[in-house]
Each structure stands twice: as C-alpha cells, then as structure tokens.
C-alpha cells in the first residue's frame, strides 16, 4: 500500500498538472508491442506499458456455434492474474478484477465486430472456429485494461488459422494458413480520477490512490464500443465527456502501434 504521504504527494503534484514520473496528465507511458512471440499459439503479442507486461495468446479450435448464432464463430476472452505478476495476485479461479477485465476486453472486440465471426463458420449450426483469447498478466504496474485490450487486438491481428477442406462433415486440415479476418481495431483508453483530476494511463502507485477509474473503448471510426466505470468513487458528467474527447485522440495514437 502506498502511504498517505505518497498519496498527498501525488495529489499535490496533480494540482500543478504534474505526475510522479514526470508525465503530463494526458500522457501514456512508453508502449511497446511484440507480436508473435509464442510460435505455438495461433496468435500472440506481448504488450509493455511502462513496466506493465501483458501477454495475450490466441488458440483456435473447432467447436459448436451458439444455438442462436448458428452461422458465427465463437469468441471467448479469459484472463489470468497469475501470482507471478504481483504480490497481490493469488492462484486460484479468476477473481472479480480479472473477470471484469476479461469482460471489458471482450465487449470492445465483440461490439466493434473486430472479428468477422461469420467467416469462422465451417458448417452452419454444427462446426465453427472457436477463438480463445487468453490474457496473461506478467507484471502488474497499473492500467491492466488498456494493456490487455491492446495485447488481445495485437494477438488477433497476428493470428493465423490452418487451411481446411470438408469431406462430408469431417474437417480435413490442409497445408498453409489464413489470416484471421480482423476488420475493426478497438482501442481502450483508461482514466483515473484522483482528487478531481483526470489522468490517463494510471500507474500502479496512482491506481492505489485513485477515487475511481473510467475506461472507454473506440473503434476504428472513432465510435464508442465499450465503457466501464470502476472503483468506489464518482464522476461528473463533464468529466466523462472530457474523458471521451481526450480518449478518442489517444485511441487514434495507440491504434497506430498495431496497424
């Protein structure tokens, strides 16, 4: 836990528009994207935001479609806060933070229709491709949502599916690979509110003193495809609208790192 002294220090700096690590209020830490580092996965990417490290891996398998979407492939997003990444993380089934993160990332991808799921149908109602995105947090230094959403998208862009042909209802694997049909590029931008100041990309020390968190996800056309408020604090309407204005620009910048 960051001490109260640290908290006062962070808050005081913010009133003069500064942050502990020298960033401006609307400045991200350095972002680095390393796609394709897990050769055995169909897709993968390691994203660094400052010292935060998140690895996303994509596996593609053949499975059944949902009964109400017989012509569409299936997308599932799962997230693991492995205890290696932080002294606060514990082994065991995903906690609420991890589930929330996975669901926010999932919504961004799903609502922006980032994957053309109809192209993943093999036999309508019977066989489709199931895309598993597994988010693996390796080092938690704040802003896991943005890092995870970016790693997931970079991994999807990087994903290849084996070619196949049908013999009756049997799927026969053929030589070669095809790119996963990625057609939109949602990008999450997360804000923290500390003593009524809005800052972008909170580091862990800032998250520990923040009042509340707000994530907004933009698709490639600048439309909003997901939002999530977190933490036990509040926002004014004006703060939300300002965050959306700033977030839209930030999303544009970050998107350039992956396409």
């Amino acid at each position, binding site marked *: 836990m960051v001490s109260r002294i640290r908290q006062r220090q962070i808050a005081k700096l913010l009133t003069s528009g500064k942050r502990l690590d020298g960033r401006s209020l609307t400045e991200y830490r350095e972002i680095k994207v390393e796609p394709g580092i897990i050769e055995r996965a169909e897709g993968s990417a390691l994203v660094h935001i400052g010292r935060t490290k998140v690895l996303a891996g994509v596996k593609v398998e053949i499975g059944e479609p949902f009964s109400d979407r017989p012509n569409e492939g299936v997308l599932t997003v799962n997230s693991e806060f492995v205890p290696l990444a932080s002294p606060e993380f514990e082994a065991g089934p*995903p906690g*609420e*933070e991890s*589930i*929330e993160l*996975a*669901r926010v990332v999932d*919504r961004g991808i*799903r*609502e*922006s229709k980032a994957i053309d799921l109809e192209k993943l149908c093999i036999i309508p109602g019977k066989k489709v491709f199931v895309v598993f995105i597994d988010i693996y947090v390796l080092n938690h230094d704040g802003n896991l949502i943005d890092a995870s959403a970016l790693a997931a998208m970079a991994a999807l862009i990087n994903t290849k599916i084996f070619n196949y042909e049908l013999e009756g209802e049997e799927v026969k694997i053929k030589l070669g690979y095809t790119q996963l049909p990625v057609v939109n590029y949602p990008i999450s931008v997360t804000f923290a509110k500390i003593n009524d100041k809005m800052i972008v990309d909170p580091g862990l020390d800032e998250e520990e003193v923040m009042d*509340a968190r*707000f994530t907004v996800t933009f*698709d490639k056309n*600048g*439309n*909003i*495809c*997901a*939002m*999530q*408020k*977190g*933490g*036990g*604090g*509040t*926002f*004014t*309407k004006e703060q*939300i*609208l300002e965050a*959306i*204005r700033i977030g*839209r620009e930030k999303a544009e910048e970050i998107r350039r790192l992956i396409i």
Partner: protein
Amino acid sequence: MKNEKRELIDKDGLRVDGRKKDELRPIKIMVGVLSNADGSAYIEQGKNKIIAAVYGPREVHPRHLALPDRAILRCRYHMAPFSVEERKSPAPSRRELELSKVIREALEPTVFLEQYPRTAIDLFIEVLQADGGTRCAGITIGSLALADAGIPMRDLVVACAAGKVDGQIVLDLNDIEDKEGEADVPVAMMPNLNLITLLQMDGLLTPEEFEEALNLSIEGCRRIYALQKKALKEKYISIREEVET
C-alpha cells in the same frame, strides 16, 4: 445485441411494448418486505421482479477481511434459475460476478463506511424474473435496502439505462431491446449530488449519441428517484400507523 431481426420502433414512434422513446416502464417499489433482513426492498420494473436485502453492519467472516478504519460493503447480484428463458445454473456466472462488482462500486460512494470500522455491510440482490435492466433496478432497490437498514448515506443512488434501438436513443430498454438493439448505457447516480456512480456501455455509439443517451439516462434516474422517495415514505407512514394504532 444487434441482429436486426424485427422492427423495434414502429412508424408511430412506439416501441415493442407500446412505450414512447423517453418513457419508463411501469415501476412498483416496496420497502421493508422481508422480516429477517435489516433492510429490504422490492421492485417490479416492466417484467423485472427483483428483491434486495441488507444485513449489517455486522461482524466480518473471515476476520482478516475487516478494515480497521471503515466498514466493507459487499454485494452479491444473483439470478434465480427460473428468472430467465433458459434455466440458469445456480452457480454464479462471470456476468453475475462482474455485475456484483459494479453494483457495489455504484453504491460505495454514498455510504459513510467510516462510521462502522471492522464491520461488513452485506447487500444481496436476487433477480426473480429478468426483463432487461436488472443491474439498474438492482441498484435502485439496493440503495433503498441500505436506507431501510438505517445505514447513513450521503444520498440515495438511483439507476436507469438508455440505449439505441432502431437508430434512435430510447430510455429504459427491456429485454428484447437490450438483446436486439444497438447499444445499452446503464447509468447510476446520486441525484442530489449530481455524481455518476455507475457507467457502462456496450454496443456502438457516436460520441454525440452517447451524450444524448447519457442525458436521457440521467433524466430517467431523476424520475425513478421520485418513486424511490415515495416508497421510502410509504414505509415510514405504515410504521407510524402501526406505532400509533
């Protein structure tokens, strides 16, 4: 969301259940409906039927979860197996776990937690029948159950969603609109303090559409707030009557 299978708004501008775009569903709220709980409330909003109960402040188990300087607020949002079209397993789903978290965080800002160090305040929300917008309705009665339990609060919290259906921004989506519409924006707020305590969105909206939806949600919240106050008052009147007779 978003497989436009049928027309959700007709040529007269009316929705599948006959409502106008900025119209709430019929709402019935009751406070103090359970004898065991320290506080409780019940809501019918459209076909939603949801009940909430508060126990606490009470001892924390396991004890290492207690905080030395304030109470912990815990929340469990849960759906009855028969509340939805296809029977739901009683084990909490990932969706229920997420909603439990965001509901708790929507109510936390209003509770003077520091008045009850080392205790827990437990809020249980049971969805008996679901018809879209259960998280908002759950927050609306969750804050009433807290009030009924006598927990000191800065303000009530009230929640309402707006969304986009057939290209138009509408208030308080029902189940069909939620599933087949284009976007859903659930909002919770403390109406007197004008502060937003829950904000989520899924679907696809331009920033301008979002602003319109946000404004409409806030308007819906204000209308439900009036119903909240009325329900609280009715409880107190009935208690006074009991005492006086």
